[in-house]
């Protein structure tokens, strides 16, 4: 008997790959891309619990310490069931998705620039993003480049804002601004979406041509718009090779190309592993992994008032929600609805679910991926465990 995985984001893809590695035939069902394709490309595992508002870098803790602290503070966190699998799950993930290079759990968190002009701590990121790790930029000259005629990226604001925040964190680097020509003969350049620009950089020789346009720049690092390739993994390296200067891109929150790049890399890994795919939506028989996401993915839905799990109608918990109040008073949270999901036993079997059903990723309840900063990390680790367990009974 094979394993059915429902959901093709990070949790579902990793579950499918783990089930394949466990020897099962896998049928992966998905309706389309979800939250993974909208992600920044960074993989959070556990945020720094000592973080203080107003101090961007209180301490520089590592994932291992953060992880223990996160579970201590949130005893209902689903990652408590799978803590032994963290290192191996992330290692397997990096094997399958070569955009990411493995890092030890006790390495200090990465501090990476974002397209909103801020720095974000995270555990793992794509190679093109890791190159802008803040502590490595001390005393360096960074030039933030935009494309002439395209306002989808704000180099001037990014340079000023990143410099300002870095200095508050005690790191001095020289952040300058530049402009480079790309697709300048396109009359509709101003209206282009990030993924359209990224696609042009996938074309053979394109990255090298852009690199040549940047060859004369005096810098230790070039920070380019986060459009460095959609389906090609080495665009940043090829630009850097031609320019003779290291190249990086910020984490993206606005029509994120790195998110799409991650999703496409997962799709390729699934294909390479021989995972069968379909868009069937009925309840599967036999061993299965539920990896349908939260609201963006469509795993948790609401009818009249009550939240419920979409496919099996499983009960959903909303921790910390008094009455039916799903949101907090301030936009900055915390918001109970973000922790809504299905509770499970220690083997990730959802309460009230049919035999052989495991759950992974954002459909799991009991944690707030945004405030606890553990979203994609939790998806990968729970996906790995759920896929492995499903294969064992297949």
């Amino acid at each position, binding site marked *: 008997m094979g394993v059915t995985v429902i959901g093709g984001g990070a949790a579902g893809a990793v579950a499918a790959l783990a089930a394949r590695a466990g020897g099962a035939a896998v049928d992966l069902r998905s309706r389309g891309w979800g939250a993974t394709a909208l992600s920044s490309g*960074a993989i959070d595992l556990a945020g720094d619990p000592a973080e203080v508002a107003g101090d961007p870098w209180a301490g520089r803790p590592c994932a291992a310490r953060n992880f223990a602290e996160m579970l201590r503070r949130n005893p209902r966190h689903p990652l408590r069931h799978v803590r032994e699998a963290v290192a191996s799950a992330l290692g397997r993930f990096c094997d399958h998705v070569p955009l990411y290079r493995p890092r030890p759990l006790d390495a200090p968190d990465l501090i990476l620039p974002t397209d909103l002009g801020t720095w974000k701590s995270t555990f793992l990121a794509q190679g093109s993003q890791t190159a802008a790790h803040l502590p490595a930029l001390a005393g360096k000259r960074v030039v933030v480049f935009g494309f002439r005629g395209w*306002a989808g990226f704000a180099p001037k604001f990014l340079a000023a804002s990143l410099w300002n925040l870095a200095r508050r964190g005690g790191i001095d680097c020289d952040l300058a601004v530049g402009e480079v020509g790309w697709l300048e003969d396109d009359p*509709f350049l101003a209206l282009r979406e990030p993924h359209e620009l990224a696609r042009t950089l996938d074309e053979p020789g394109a990255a090298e041509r852009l690199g040549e346009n940047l060859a004369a720049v005096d810098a230790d690092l070039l920070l380019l718009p986060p459009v460095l390739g959609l389906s090609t993994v080495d665009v940043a390296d090829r630009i850097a090779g031609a320019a003779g200067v290291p190249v990086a891109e910020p984490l993206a929150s*606005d029509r994120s190309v790195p998110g799409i790049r991650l999703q496409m890399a997962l799709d390729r890994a699934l294909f390479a592993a021989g995972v069968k795919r379909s868009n069937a939506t009925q309840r599967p028989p036999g061993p299965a992994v539920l990896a349908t996401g939260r609201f963006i993915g469509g795993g948790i839905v609401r009818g009249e008032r009550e939240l419920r799990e979409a496919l099996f109608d499983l009960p959903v918990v909303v921790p910390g929600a008094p009455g039916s109040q799903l949101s907090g008073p301030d936009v900055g949270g915390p*918001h109970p*609805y973000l922790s809504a999901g299905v509770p499970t036993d220690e083997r990730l079997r959802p309460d009230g679910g049919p035999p052989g059903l495991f759950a992974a990723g954002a459909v799991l309840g009991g944690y707030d991926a945004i405030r606890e900063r553990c979203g994609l990390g939790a998806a990968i680790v729970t996906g790995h465990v759920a896929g492995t367990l499903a294969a064992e009974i297949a």
Partner: protein
Amino acid sequence: MSETGNRPYDAVVIGGGINGCGVARDLTLRGLRVALVERRDLGAGTSGHSSGMIHGGPRYLLREREVTRASCVDAGRIRAIAPHLCFRIPFLVPILRGTSRVMAEALEAYMEAYDHFAPLKDGRPHTRLSADEARRIEPGLGPEVAGAVTFDEWGIDGFRLCLMNARDARLHGADVFTYSPAVALLRDGAAVVGAVVRTREGERRLEAPVVVNVAGPWAPEVAQLAGVTVRLRRGKGVHLVYGRRLGNFGIMTRAVDGRWIFVEPQQNGALLGTTDDDTYAGADELRVSRDEVEYLIEGIAHVLPSIRDHRFLRTIVGVRPTLYEYGRSPDALSRDHAILDHEEDGAPGLLTMVGGKLAYYRAMCEELADAVCRKVGSQAACTTHVRSLPGAGAADAGLIAERFLVPEPAAARLVFRHGSDARQMLESAQESDRGVLCSCEPVLRAEARYALDAEGATSIDDLRRRTRLGEGTCQGTWCIGRASALLHEVGAASVEQAHRCAIESLRERWRGRTAALDQPGTATLATEELMQSRYFLVGDYGRLPWA
């Protein structure tokens, strides 16, 4: 530190809603020197939270025929001076099954009476529709509907109407101070001879023989600066905002308690409103309850059941500064206005205007300007009914789209909002500013930059009022971050201010959205999750030193 304004004025106008902007323009066009002061942004109070209708007020036909007539006359004039800002809203009033023949005839007679006024505002006469005819043009009507009558009204963007009045005043010499609350009135003995305003640069003394208090719901507070009591029945008015048009017509019907409510196409979306309840809360601390939301939806669902299939994006809430009267329901209160000369209260030189409707602001402002002129001895006549507001010339959206290579929907809304100024705006725009800043509307970067450069916008919230940035389906998820970078890029904000503006704007959007988050369905939760991920997960706004 207090700085004396470098010139005395003929009048200081306190309040930058439609009455303040309108009277400032009227007085300025008559040659008077005017200072207009507003505690926040122009149109940020009642005017910006209205139904956005220049209507003739058929509702007042029986009780206050004069209000209806004055509304219609002025609606026609507003339509003539700002044709680009007005859009026709055909309304449909369903007749329900079980309505007696007498009642149906009465409704028709009522509409016939309204027809007499319709030509005054370029309105079309009413029509009577059978149930089949009504369903053919509005298929969503429910089984209760046995027929309908139609009439039409004009919709308008209330923010831009304020802005264009203020801009025309400034073009003709008025000084406009936004984000400048009046903190004291200057006195010479008993006489009120000006105001002290706290601008962002410090306090300023603005001297004038007449001070005009048109602060709307805040009028009592301003009058109190002179020790004068002004009483209002403040009515809380709630609207639900939908992200798209729900039909071809506005629909007007009775709520469960018999009050008239409506759903109308407005801009790219639809508005459902309104409630009218006495409020004693501060005008800045109003919240919308689930009861108010359900009251409105239930009323419309009675004739348009499909309303429940649509999700509303947010709620807006405003305060009607209605004339005080004890012992009547809010709905039964007069919509007329009153000009109070506080000479009788021992504060000569201070005038207050309260009450009234957006729909005939121009006529009210004319009356108020007449009163000011009598005080300062001016004989100048009003010209606001014949002089057009900025942008009133012709423009062709198709040609603009072709010439500047911008999407046609973007060009069309530029023409609606800026009229003949749209072309000039794009002509002077940089190449990259043809890009889209807010994709829901869509708002081009050029329009936002113009609002920052030429329309006095200083924050993302100001940009929203001027351009509707962040008013669409995503409620700022994409555009607020982009706008903060633009603020910095044009030199309107430091890095700190740009981030702070973004956070304030997220908070402002959130306040109107909490009620929307409680409605059935998942889409609002998903949008919210995306917004939280962008700003609080990736952007890590919660940790910014300025959060």
